[in-house]
């Protein structure tokens, strides 16, 4: 089918609605946030228009640097955990019977209907000393006595991975279903064991999909602020927690805005780097 580029102004009309929504609900708020990040805070009040770099300057400190570093580390760790768990799972799922696949996908989709609050409290109960899974381990004789697994970094990681895994599977699923199953069979006839075939054929053939999934989960995890607070110690709090704290409890909108803008820039830079690295490898 030949597609002609739009000829007249009226041809662009169908674009008007989405473009308008995007401007009203994304471009304007984002521009406002950038503007506010340069404003001056008014003690006891809100803020007044200005053009100062103070908010950014205040951010350049060891404390905020550490928080930013931890946020990025957490998001990357969750992204990697999701992909490492998600690929073998989705690969095996895509090789099962159609009915079973649908059942699993529906179950995964139903996780998406749970709010972050419910996931957080469910895991904090599961990780608690009084009612948690360690009681089960004790009953099975794996542990001497029940203990609390939260607050800890592991608890934050677990809950965030749990929350992001359905998205991971849903992004990987179409690519894995479309992957020619004879590719692995060919690898096996050429002498690769099933595990070797998986790592030398399935994973590299899906490199772009894996990269896209990593980026998606990374961005998703970067915005998380409830789970670190529910399941982690203060040192496990992300930049998003501090932004919320500044914006809502300290009423320091300009500083919160500056942190948010900085976070967006850093994540954009990382995503750009990942895409660039992917392209470089493809060119070789």
């Amino acid at each position, binding site marked *: 089918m030949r597609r002609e580029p739009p000829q007249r102004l009226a041809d662009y009309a169908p674009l008007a609605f989405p473009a308008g929504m995007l401007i009203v609900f994304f471009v304007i708020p984002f521009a406002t946030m950038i503007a506010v990040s340069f404003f001056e805070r008014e003690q006891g009040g809100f803020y007044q228009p200005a053009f100062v770099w103070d908010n950014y300057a205040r951010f350049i400190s060891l404390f905020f640097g550490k928080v930013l570093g931890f946020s990025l580390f957490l998001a990357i760790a969750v992204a990697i955990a999701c992909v490492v768990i998600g690929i073998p799972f989705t690969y095996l799922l895509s090789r099962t019977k159609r009915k079973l696949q649908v059942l699993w996908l529906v179950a995964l989709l139903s996780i998406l209907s749970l709010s972050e609050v419910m996931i957080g409290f469910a895991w904090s109960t599961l990780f608690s000393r009084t009612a948690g899974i360690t009681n089960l381990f004790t009953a099975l004789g794996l542990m001497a006595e029940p203990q609390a697994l939260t607050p800890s970094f592991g608890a934050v990681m677990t809950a965030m991975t749990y929350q992001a895994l359905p998205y991971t599977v849903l992004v990987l699923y179409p690519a894995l279903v479309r992957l*020619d199953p*004879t*590719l692995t*069979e*060919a*690898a*096996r*006839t*050429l*002498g*690769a*064991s*099933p595990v*070797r*075939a998986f790592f*030398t*054929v399935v994973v*590299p*053939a899906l*490199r772009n999909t894996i990269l896209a999934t990593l980026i998606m989960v990374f961005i998703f995890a970067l915005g998380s602020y409830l789970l670190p607070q529910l399941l982690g110690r203060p040192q496990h709090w992300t930049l998003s927690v501090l932004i919320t704290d500044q914006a809502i409890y300290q009423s320091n909108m300009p500083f919160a805005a500056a942190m948010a803008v900085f976070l967006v820039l850093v994540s954009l830079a990382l995503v750009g780097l990942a895409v660039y690295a992917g392209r470089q490898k493809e060119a070789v």
Partner: protein
Amino acid sequence: MSGLILNNVTKQFGTFTAVKDVNLTVPDGTFVCLLGPSGCGKTTLMRMIAGLDLPTKGSITLGGEDITEVPTHKRNLGMVFQSLALFPHLTVGENIAYALRIRGMPKADQQKRVDELLAMIDLAGFSDRSVNKLSGGQRQRVAIARALAISPKLFLLDEPLSALDAKLREAMQVELRQLQQQLGITTIVVTHDQREAMTMADTVVVMNGGKIRQAAAPVDIYRRPADSFVADFIGSTNLIPFSADGNGRAIILGEPVEGLALGGVNSGTISVRPEDIQITAPESGSIPGKVSFVRDLGGTVETFIEAGGQQIVAVSAPRTRPDVTVGQTVGIRLDPLTSVVLTR
């Protein structure tokens, strides 16, 4: 015992029997074609030889060694898939070297072997190309080279040429046969194209309904089909019912015909190839019929004749074409020596 031996191989998928009690011996260095309509079990049989499916019953022996339960990656074979299954993330050279890399061959030796194989398939210098940028025929050759990289004992091809256009396919058939003879490698090809099977194979194995109907040399399959399925599937034929008159003659379409080796049966079917049917004037000793259609294809002429309520097709070369017109009454003569009596 050398060669590949299949012993009572059966494969069931649930209640469906895809392959039933197949016995087949493939001597070393021969070229065998598994031929049959789709769903006849030929691909399943090949997948069991490759180890991609396990037989429900029976055993498979290769070079005297029972490989029935040996996993695919330890069988040291080469296989070309219908989809070719070239690895899209690897270059031509990396695809061909895959089996060598898996076996831990040093890089330099790998490159040497790849160059050798690329020269063999007339793609020297293509090593660093992406497989996604090759033509259909080139991809085909790369898949063949990749399967042959380790010089396997057994070379399997599943409908290897089905994606190519007709002209290229014919050329590749000849090339593949020449390559096989040059390497002396035991080769099994699955195909539904009888021309392909006739061109390449030492032995054609005709399958239907999960069973082997006949396994023989191509000419024997054509000249002496074992049953009406084989006769009808290989080339075109006239299947005509007959009954014996008790004096050694067969009554065919109401006329007695002498000289057929009936083998003591009272009735059955004979298979007569269209090129073995002679059209004469309506004289005694011939079967009378009426010309219903003449198809002149330039290279051959097909004459359709209504005789005894059945349609008979005769093929002749343009030079010996019978001088007949539609509606004319003619006589048909069957050559008793080339007519085959089918008892099942």
